[in-house]
């Protein structure tokens, strides 16, 4: 861990405009070595534009980025040695094999042969891909492509890793393996910036910035963000979810109702008080409900609630 300089990434007042649209608007935060920082938000929130600026493949209109003590805008090429960037779209060569791709990136970063071979080997073992060394990258599954991308971006032991929606199109099993690799990198002191549109994934990060239309709404730990969630979330399991919704919406203290597959999520002001009231109301209306219990709100529940608050304000 490079403790002397402090933050691995420092972003201040970062702004990027495309014509009249401000894609990233006055973004400021910092990421410590060994921290996984998530940029979370829907499509068009400005995540990819921000990532491109961190990777110094796009120049901001205003603001500054300092990576590992080096000003990215003043020395874009110097920082590229310490940074690894995985673009959202698969950036490797599909007509090259797994091994040829790895070697190509090792050569570009001038990693000594012994070093990258050992590193690639351990990465391939960790991601369960050793038997695919000679396979063309284009013939890998979505999950394996992403793991290969990660392997290539790690051959030069970067201090900062930038991952733009790395698990889009990746199956749950590969996604889990992918994250286990990220956690082992965290233990090595690598700072990671990850963008994602999947709010369930956001919970895996150490800290999050919620982005919407280019601006940062909140920046906190997942637990800290969830504590801002107004009220509580009740899960009602029922074969008649639409009737549950009707009943719930008529009830006092209900802030929102969401149909999910096997039931209904009811956002209430006070879980302890409203839970029995809801049960009573459902029984009174003759609506079946197999169980009602308070569940932890997800980041998605929170995101929607925050968006609603913001639009009201």
């Amino acid at each position, binding site marked *: 861990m490079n403790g002397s300089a402090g933050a691995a990434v420092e972003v201040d007042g970062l702004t990027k405009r495309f014509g009249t649209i401000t894609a990233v608007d006055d973004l400021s935060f910092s990421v410590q070595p060994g921290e996984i920082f998530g940029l979370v938000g829907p499509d068009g929130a400005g995540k990819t534009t921000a990532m*491109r600026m961190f*990777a*110094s*493949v*796009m*120049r901001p209109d205003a603001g500054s980025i300092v990576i590992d003590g080096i000003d990215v805008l003043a020395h*874009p*090429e110097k920082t*590229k*040695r310490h*940074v*690894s*960037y*995985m*673009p959202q*779209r*698969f*950036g*490797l*060569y*599909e*007509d*090259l094999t797994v091994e*040829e791709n790895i*070697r*190509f*990136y090792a*050569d*570009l*970063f*001038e990693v000594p042969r012994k070093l990258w071979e050992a590193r690639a080997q351990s990465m391939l073992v960790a991601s369960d891909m050793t038997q695919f060394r000679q396979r*063309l990258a284009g013939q890998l599954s979505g999950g394996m492509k992403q793991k290969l991308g990660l392997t290539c971006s790690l051959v030069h032991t970067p201090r900062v890793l930038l991952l733009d929606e790395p698990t889009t199109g990746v199956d749950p099993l590969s996604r889990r393996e992918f994250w286990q690799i990220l956690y082992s990198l965290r233990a090595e002191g690598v700072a990671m910036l990850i963008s994602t549109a999947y709010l369930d994934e956001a919970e895996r990060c150490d800290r999050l910035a919620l982005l919407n239309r280019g601006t940062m709404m909140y920046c906190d730990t997942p637990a800290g963000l969830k504590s801002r969630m107004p009220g509580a979330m009740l899960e009602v399991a029922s074969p008649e979810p639409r009737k549950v919704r009707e009943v719930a919406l008529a009830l006092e203290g209900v802030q929102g109702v969401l149909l999910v597959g096997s039931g209904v999520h009811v956002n209430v002001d006070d879980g302890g008080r409203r839970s029995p009231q809801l049960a009573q109301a459902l029984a009174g209306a003759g609506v079946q409900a197999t169980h009602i219990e308070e569940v932890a709100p997800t980041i998605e529940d929170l995101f929607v609630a925050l968006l609603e608050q913001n639009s009201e304000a």
Partner: protein
Amino acid sequence: MKLRRVKAIAVKESLQIVRDPRSLMIALLIPLMQMFMLGYGINLDIKHIPLCTYDREMSQQSLGLLKRFEASRYFTLRKTAQDYAELTRDIDDSSCTIAIVIPAGFSQGLNDAGTGTVQALIDGTDSNTANIAANYARAVISGFSGDLQLQAIQRRGGTVQTLTPVDVQARVWFNENLESRNYIIPGIVALVMAIVGAQLTSLTIAREWERGTMELLVSTPVKPLELMLGKLLPYFAIGMLDAAICLALAVFWFDVPFRGTLATLLFTTSLFLIVVLCIGYYVSVSIRSQVGASQVALLLTMLPTILLSGFAFPIDQMPVFVQGITYLVSGRYYVTILKSVFLKGAGAVELAVPILCLALYAVALVVLAARSFRKTLD
């Protein structure tokens, strides 16, 4: 600049070329095809003009004249017509370009008055061919009448010597038989090299943009010059192979005499190849789509090389203003060099000026191409 990175890019690019056998075939077959098509297609000599005859007399003399037409390598007898209608039809459907009609009473006129009239009908659709056909016909006929005069004089007991007091024997240097092929094929080699060379590299950067690999590439420490050199090296090898194919075809298939040295030929060819590869690369950097880049590269290389390089159309016949423009066309220097090396056997000393111009051109384009690439997505 790091050689390791140049090598890494060259190896990667070569692997991609090898993995795509179709494009490799195209890179090697297209020049072959173009050489044959252009080599046979563009021919300024007119030989074997399809001929139709209509002999209304069938005398010894009329047959003698027609024999001469048949014997000439400029004409090929297609049809012996039996009436005017047939003859007209043949001209109309282009099966004959020229028709020679010998009227009845042809030999009688010759014997009585010493003159005879022959009618030549020529398809004037292609005025150039028509002119040439008329001239050839005139030549055949004047040869025939010359012989007739000779016979007449001999019959009258005159002397022969006075008839041909001067015998002009023109000697044409470098292209003794005045075969236009000898002079056009080296130009075609230049044209093919220009087209293929720029095509090869026009796709290379655009492809990385289209496939999304560029975003990752620009985030690495690779330098623009390293990227360019690594990308151009494999295409240079293919380009030289193409050049070898074209030049070998010129010498061994089209029988163009080669009088220069191989060293001069290879040196100048590699200079020209660098120029066209850099044009393709520059276009590929500027236009981020493969289709667009390929078309622009074709336009930038083919048109000027055909029109302004002097490959088929003599530069000194052009308006002065256009002549000025030709100095900006790299093909002009290479065409000059190739023709001189092939036909005159000229070496580096004689060709110092065009070689120097081509070298300057190459340096300028390398710098332009290297500077054109920006490591940014903006």
